């Protein structure tokens, strides 16, 4: 229309960590595994056991990532970590965006819950638990949210059978 285009956040020089990663590393050294920028989006991968410290650093630090847009998960059966969680963060104050990534593990996927940092993560983590089976430590009420409460299995896992649940009938034999 007639409005000026939004100013882009300045990108870090090649070889240097971004502000976000620097803040995480300051409070929790060794937490950041890697970071990369693609199509203008910054993704920071952290160790799963440091997710809570990273969350606090990003929310309370100068970046002020006070808004958690969502917690999502993807199943990579060939990777050792298998479940790749993504926390999409936004800063209402600065307009900044970042994606925090962590691998929750394969056989018994667990990670700390970030509900103590962002209360809005409550139902998001419940959905990840319901669909993928990732357990969140410290979650106030971790139970299924989409599927019936007595459902077996985690439907969005790659090994969930397609059209696989049995049609329910009575117990008559």
């Amino acid at each position, binding site marked *: 229309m007639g409005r000026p285009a939004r100013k882009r956040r300045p990108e870090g020089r090649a070889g240097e960590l971004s502000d976000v990663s620097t803040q995480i590393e300051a409070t929790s050294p060794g937490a950041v595994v890697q970071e990369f920028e693609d199509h203008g989006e910054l993704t920071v991968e952290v160790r799963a056991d440091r997710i809570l410290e990273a969350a606090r650093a990003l929310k309370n630090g100068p970046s002020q990532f006070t808004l958690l847009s969502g917690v999502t998960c993807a199943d990579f059966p060939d990777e050792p970590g298998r479940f790749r969680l993504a926390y999409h963060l936004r800063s209402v104050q600065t307009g900044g965006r970042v994606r925090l990534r962590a691998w929750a593990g394969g056989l018994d996927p667990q990670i700390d819950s970030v509900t103590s940092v962002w209360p809005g993560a409550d139902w998001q983590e419940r959905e990840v638990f319901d669909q993928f089976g990732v357990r969140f430590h410290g979650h106030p009420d971790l139970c299924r949210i989409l599927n019936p409460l007595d459902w077996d299995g985690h439907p969005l896992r790659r090994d969930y059978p397609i059209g696989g649940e049995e*049609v*329910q009938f009575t117990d008559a034999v």
Partner: protein
Amino acid sequence: MGRLDALKGFGVTFRTLLTKPVTIGYPEHKTPVYPRFRGRHRLWLHDDGLEKCVGCSLCAAACPADCIRVVAEENTPEHRVSAGERYARIYEINMARCIFCGYCEIACPFDAITLEHSYELSEYTREALIYTKDVLLEPAPKQPPLHSNVPGGPIPPGEA
């Protein structure tokens, strides 16, 4: 966009206020369904009281949703249920999985199962949606109206 366009919009709103609504006030007014409407299933009996269903399971084989379960049993001289060699000892349809396609009705060689007109099938539990043979043999408790009671509504097919 000038001021005149805004007034034109208000004119449309006002004219619509004066037209008669076409909304059908369900549940007080209901339209009857077309003759071949596919609603709730029904299992049928012959005039002499024997069941038409012989437990051949063609309906279960035809069902795209795999929601029919048939377990057949031999008819004995003491206990004769159907008109053929065997009868369906267990016949269940999971109405939560049924897609109301009517393939079971098409597949049945004995006209034992048809889809009737009843469509008000809500239940409070998933278990209540698993219809067993005794439920299916009976006509539906909630039958749709035979004639339209919609005031000033369109004349349904087959009437007038």
